[in-house]
């Protein structure tokens, strides 16, 4: 593919970034208004339930107790699976193409480039930049340990991603707002400061991408060592002195490919084969790999985003009745119609099929859980 075509296709990546930013904003905004009581014609999953890092955070408790950390569910694991699939195949393209926080840093970075020109991205000594990159792993370890210990999403206290989409709600911890502000301001001086130094998800993906067969490769036989690729790299990776880019910070943004001065000296390929320098194809592969597991889970009912148990008709026993179940769900569990259950339990007015069982006694003090359990148990015996 010619250099001009590679440069012109940069807009493909920008569109993909913008689309995901809008998509995540939509989820954050609509879910917030849903929580405030605004009725919408659709149900939006919670912001936390579709975060891939939530899948990482809950792993400790899943392994030790076979339970999820509060606010995380099966949906987090499916999204994480999609992200890991993208990363295992194409490298850290999730970071470069999809992550909304990365995209915002990119957009602010364009302002920094305009202001500082050649000085942009050169404020931090290379050695210090490299050392700071290890902070990601320290932060990742700390988050996993603390989350497993406290059984809650402690990262929310400093998460700039959560703060970015919720700063307007009044719900965000001041520490997270401070971190977000620092990240956005730093983006004016250096490209993607959060990604290169602190992102715990990036730390995970940086390790996973080592198994990706597709890598940025430099043809040493034809390279003129002009170093344009190194200068173009937003994360400060020294491509010009490497044959294969194994740096975990590489997010496959493709800027090095676009900057390469001779046609196709740098490639994104498996060895000398299967070169993907075309951003259209890259976008298609990334989106397909990300959404394939999510779509499968959604269509098979496995994309669970809440604590509610999935009631299968006619399979409930009296011992399995939960206080948080509704009377409608109870009817389904015992393979009854709601009206039939209403008569059987002698439910008074004021109790509907959407009333949770635990709340029934607040409407009529005689309708308590143990009364309901006894009656349903007798129904089972008959």
């Amino acid at each position, binding site marked *: 593919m010619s250099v001009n075509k590679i440069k012109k296709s940069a807009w493909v990546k920008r569109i993909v970034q913008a689309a995901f930013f809008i998509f995540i904003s939509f989820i954050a905004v609509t*879910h917030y208004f*849903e*929580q*405030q009581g605004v009725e919408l014609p659709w149900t939006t999953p*919670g*912001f*936390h*339930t579709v975060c891939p890092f939530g899948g990482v955070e809950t792993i400790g408790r899943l392994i030790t*107790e076979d*339970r999820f950390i*509060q*606010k995380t569910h099966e949906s987090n694991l499916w999204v994480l699976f999609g992200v890991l699939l993208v990363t295992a195949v194409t490298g850290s393209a999730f970071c470069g193409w999809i992550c909304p926080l990365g995209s915002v840093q990119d957009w602010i970075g364009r302002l920094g480039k305009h202001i500082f020109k050649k000085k942009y991205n050169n*404020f*931090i000594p290379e050695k*210090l930049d490299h050392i*700071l990159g290890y*902070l990601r792993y*320290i*932060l990742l370890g*700390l*988050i996993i340990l*603390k989350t497993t210990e*406290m*059984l*809650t*999403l*402690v*990262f*929310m*206290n*400093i998460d700039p991603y959560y703060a970015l989409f919720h700063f307007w*709600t*009044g*719900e*965000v*911890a001041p*520490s997270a707002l*401070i*971190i977000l502000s*620092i990240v956005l301001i730093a983006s004016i001086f250096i490209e993607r400061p959060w990604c290169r130094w*602190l992102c715990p998800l990036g730390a995970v993906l940086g390790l996973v991408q080592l198994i990706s067969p597709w890598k940025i490769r430099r043809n040493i036989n034809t390279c003129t060592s002009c170093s344009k690729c190194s200068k173009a790299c937003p994360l400060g990776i020294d491509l010009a002195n490497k044959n294969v880019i194994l740096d975990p910070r590489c997010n496959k943004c493709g800027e090095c490919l676009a900057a390469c001065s001779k046609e196709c000296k740098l490639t994104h390929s498996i060895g000398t084969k299967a070169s993907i320098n075309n951003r259209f194809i890259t976008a298609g592969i990334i989106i397909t790999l990300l959404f394939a597991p999510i779509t499968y889970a959604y269509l098979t009912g496995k994309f669970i985003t*809440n*604590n509610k148990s999935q009631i299968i008709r006619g399979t409930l026993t009296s011992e399995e*009745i*939960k*206080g*948080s179940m509704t009377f409608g769900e109870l009817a389904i569990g015992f393979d009854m119609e709601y009206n039939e259950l209403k008569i059987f339990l002698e439910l008074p007015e004021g109790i509907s099929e959407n009333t949770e*069982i*635990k709340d029934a*006694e607040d409407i009529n003090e005689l309708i*308590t*859980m*143990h009364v309901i*359990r006894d009656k349903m148990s007798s129904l089972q015996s008959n």
Partner: protein
Amino acid sequence: MKNKLIFITGIFLVFSIANASACYLNFIITDSHNNEKTVKPFENITVNSEENYVLTVIFTQDHRNCIISAEETDFLLYEEKWKTTKDYLPMQLVSISNWEKTGAHCYTIELEFIPKAEGTWELRILRECLKGGYDECLVFNIL
């Protein structure tokens, strides 16, 4: 100067996460001899029947300005609302204080109870909310 700024930011970050006290709900059991023990969900808590215990629950909002008040926290014993009037439940609730604001975004309640029926019983603490809420169990093993 810029190196100092980066260093301070890094320390702030690590400090914030290392000292995260925003454990959504903390639980402390105090026995009749005033021995306190912090307990965690799904950890087996051994208690003796017919002895007095106090369960202190400390609730910290992780979403500021949470629309679900502390009072909307449900305590379900064997999936039924735990009330002082219910002497048929495996643990008799003797008294329950009001939720008190004990810090910024932090509320505390005390529940005094007497274990009655031998066996293993789950006290479910439930806060229902579209943002995920809270749903955990304390597992009491009554001897």
